[in-house]
């Protein structure tokens, strides 16, 4: 059970594949246009139920409840080995006395 007033995320299909715009790539036309939005739950409910939320702009949106207190999960991630040596390589060029490579 997720209490009224909780910060949640909802999901909604905006356009089913058959209602999508005419001139879009085939792969895009095969799938629906989906929406995700976050806000405060207006009535106590459960994941998977149709709910209404109050957004930060003061609007009411409806959709399927998909997450309670949804996080910001994006990260920097693991270091990229292909980038790690660049700094030292460039500093080595700066340390060299001669300019152009012959």
């Amino acid at each position: 059970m997720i209490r009224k007033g909780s910060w949640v995320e909802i999901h909604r299909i905006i356009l089913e594949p058959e209602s999508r715009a005419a001139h879009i790539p085939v792969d895009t036309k095969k799938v629906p246009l989906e929406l995700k939005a976050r806000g405060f739950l207006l009535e106590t409910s459960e994941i998977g139920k149709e709910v209404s939320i109050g957004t930060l702009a003061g609007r009411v949106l409806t959709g399927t409840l998909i997450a309670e207190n949804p996080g910001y999960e994006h990260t920097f991630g693991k270091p990229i080995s292909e980038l790690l040596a660049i700094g030292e390589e460039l500093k080595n060029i700066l340390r060299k006395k001669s300019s152009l490579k012959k």
Partner: protein
Amino acid sequence: MRDLKHSKQSYESVMKRRNEIMKSSVGIDYAKFRIGALAYDYEGLLKSTGYTLDKVINIQRQTSVGNTPLVELKNINRLIRKISQPGRGARIFLKDESANPSGSFKDRRASVSVYEAKGRGYPGVAAATSGNYGAAVASQSAKNLLRCIIVQEAFDSRGIAQPEILEKARACEAYGAEVLRLSVGPELFYVFLTVLEETGFFNASLYTPFSVLGIESLGFEIASDVKKRTGKFPEVVVVTHAGGGNVTGTARGLIKAGAHNTEVIGASVDLSGLHMASDRDFNRKSFTTGHTGFGIPFAEWPDRTDVPFNSARPLKYLDRYVTVSQGEVFYITRALAELEGMERGPAGNTSLAAGFAIARDMKSDEILVVQETEYTGAGKHPTAQLNLAKKMGIKVKRGDPAENVPGESIIIPERPEQIRVRDVDLGKLRESYVTRALKNLYKQKKECKKEDIEFLMEDSRANSEMIKRIMNEIFK
């Protein structure tokens, strides 16, 4: 959910109302400025808003926008000279636009739009953008205590989001904006129209006069700061080019400062071969802005936007247009951090990668300005973006960036000399623009009059021979 197919909210019926929705949401009657079948009174349109450069600067002072540091990249400049022919290697100065309140030059555009919205009594501001502009509009709205809604194209049909866009959604929410995150597709515009219609909010479009005039201060500051520091205007300013506003506003600001001879070079990340409306291609790119997927179509045909006449006219202001690859931009982003102690977002460094290559061919007493940086953070960072690329099966390796294939490989240069710009043929883009404009006229059975030809020449910098030749082909 309700069946929207036959309602007033259906795709078709909302799209039919687009002109009236747009008119009331930007508050400009564009029809007043039409002077021919093609011709528009461009300067008249911009002037009619009342935002002179002084007024723009004053508005931006009040919201701490602009007056960003101009940083000479001393170590990068030494590096350039080490790898260039004797007597070559221009000095690069970097305009550190990340010092703006929301971390990018987009604050300049947002500041004027939000000021206009507030002055005209709109209850809030909305913008359709997945980029830094969303954070900028949200930040400026916060400063003005206006409500704000940002509509993003954010994730593909598998629910995989671009890390850069996730970060932008977080930033917008941090500034108190409602964020609508959509899957891939141009019908984002439909959702945006329904938001404007329901809320009566101001449309902070990237393509209104407000948005373009807000950037003039950037070009003006660059010209004045360089002159103060070095006694002359810069020979070259490199501008990251996408929708055309950045090029247009910066070039206009340079002209207003008197820097008539400064060459304006647009730079985009090469994403050729990737379709911008493709669900599959969406996450096969590591740049969500500043790339050719916007840069080329908006140069060829600027009037593909949400307003009847786009105030961003890239062909009118571009002296040269070049591309760089994704790997080259990631490389220079790392170089900027390790040689200059400035960690900045990769997309904003597109013009730095191009500037690095261009400076090598310039004389050592010349000056090149790279016109922006953007903030960096989780998601908006080479590691985040390259981790996604690897997850999507894109090959990431060191090598010669000339071998890069967008959507298949990202080649990180092995040596700085391998950073190279590739010129986009502006003549071809002019030809394409003029052809499309004249074909439209022909289809509408309208005549191309003297004022239209004059407009085309000025707007695209095509010469009269090119226009006459294309006219003869179409109207024969």
